[in-house]
């Protein structure tokens, strides 16, 4: 058993997700990502089950593990009760811990997720807030969202939200004491370490690619990883 396989096997999701895959392909048949991308969850299970560290390393450095949408449709249908979607979570975790994620176009996007969703959680206590969904970054949201975004306070007030207000209610301001508790949880449990690793490995990659790294969503590297698509990910 190789070191990478051993580290994967230590992940609690691994034990829950892979119990002697019989290679039937039911997961691939139900998988929305397999419809869209060159993706086959059956092959993921086979590769990991081989316990071949070289193949596992290659997998964790590739675009492939980043195609899954984590809908968990595979969990419902697998006749062995396996969950390739959970296995993907374990692979992605290890890929980020070891820095393999920066080797692929889809993997590099983790910095974009960290600097948007990830940082938003600690800054506001929410994964998503209306002010974060910028119409420029989200043209698909359409003209009604554009109008709503320009009139957030009166519209949220009309719809019964407590937008940025004290106390309870939708979109209330989360107090600094609560945010401090969240920060401490991240520090105690490895969440902050994960964020730091994503930044550090990405910074190295940005230097290698000759792109300005910066600290926000306007940097060259962020804009590159947020929009780059080599058009080689889909069925032909």
């Amino acid at each position, binding site marked *: 058993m190789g070191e990478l396989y051993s580290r994967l096997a230590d992940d609690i999701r691994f034990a829950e997700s892979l119990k002697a895959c019989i290679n039937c392909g039911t997961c691939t048949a139900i998988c929305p990502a397999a419809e869209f991308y060159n993706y086959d969850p059956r092959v993921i299970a086979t590769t990991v089950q081989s316990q071949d560290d070289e193949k596992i390393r290659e997998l964790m450095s590739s675009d492939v593990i980043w195609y899954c949408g*984590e809908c968990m449709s595979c969990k419902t249908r697998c006749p062995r009760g396996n969950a390739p979607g959970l296995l993907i979570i374990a692979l992605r975790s290890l890929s980020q811990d070891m820095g393999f994620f920066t080797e692929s176009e889809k993997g590099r996007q983790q910095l*974009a997720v960290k600097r948007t969703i990830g940082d938003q*959680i600690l800054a506001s206590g929410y994964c998503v807030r209306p002010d974060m969904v910028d119409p420029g*970054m989200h043209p698909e949201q359409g003209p009604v*969202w*554009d109008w709503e975004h320009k009139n957030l306070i*009166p519209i949220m007030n009309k719809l019964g939200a407590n937008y940025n207000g004290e106390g309870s209610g939708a979109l209330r301001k989360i*107090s600094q004491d609560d945010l401090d508790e969240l920060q401490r949880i*991240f520090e105690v449990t490895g969440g902050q370490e994960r964020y730091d690793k994503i930044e550090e490995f990405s910074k190295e990659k940005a230097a290698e690619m000759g792109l300005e790294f910066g600290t926000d969503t306007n940097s060259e590297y962020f804009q590159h990883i947020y929009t780059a698509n080599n058009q080689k990910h889909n069925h032909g």
Partner: protein
Amino acid sequence: MKLEGKRLIWQDYQKEIADDHYFYARSCIRQTFFPGAEAVFVKILKDELGKDIHDEQHHTSCTGIGYHSDVVPFDTTMTVVARQFALMTEAGYENYAASCVTSFGLYTEILDTWHHFPEKEAQIREFLFKATGREFNKPKNLAHASDIVYKFRHQIAAKAKYKLVDKNTGEPLKVVEHIGCHYSKMFPHKGIGGAEYPYVLSGMIEAWGGEVIDYPERRHCCGFGFRQYLVQANRGFSLSCSKKKFDSMEPYEPDMIITNCPGCPMFLDRWQYALSEMEGKTYGKNHNGIPVFTYEEVAGMIMGYDPWEIGLQVHQVPAEPLLDKIGIRYDPSRKFKGKNGEDLGMPESPSYLKFYAE
């Protein structure tokens, strides 16, 4: 599948839903895109049904979107969820009601993980105490908010002013129900009706007078896919999933779509707009789309609440064709006005999708 067969399956997938005294945890996405829906839920439970619901101010995001886009480790998410349970315990509640389906799926997964790995639960308790000094009891009852509306669907029907019926023909409306993947795909026994034929929304639709459409891609994901939407370069995945569903449901001429997940209605609404701009394609008649609603909004609509007070104007696909079909009264001139009638301007009209404004 014949209805009789489904009913047999549904009998196998029933769950206990607490009758009263709920600790309510809000959803990041529902608050952002459909805050009126959460307001309707609280109003119906408190004012119409006389239930006790605790609206906790100190809870945060469960970090679910961060977890499922893989930037937040499982231990971190479990400890944040443990903190929500601690807040519930401190407030004197035992029945946890989650507005979000991603959260509900995570709570279910975490409780199952702790059941199988008690040493992990012990470790998370240590993490939480070290970080916050808090301790917690696990919920006695865990429900998604749609479970609770399902439980009281007949009481809501008894108080309703309208039915999901065409006012001119008396025929039931044709309704697509879309269940968020994490409601029951991971743990079918934790969802009403299971994963293959979930009944949580179908039960509401039937109780409120509508007819459920069974179409080929009924159980297909809406396409959120977490990182597949969050990063601009991946959004083709998200759009393609929704398109597959629209193409599959279109021949059945649905009057509306009802969803129980906070994200799905936003995607099914916005991607209809995007597809109309990209391809000039609309999925309803006369350049209308198929209106998409949360179950709380539909409950509010049939209760006769003002459509603009519950937030139907913030949908990109206009609700008016459906409101007219049911006969729900509304004032078109107030659609884009503020709470006290102040002028907020109005959105631009899309290129193809029909726009309703006065």
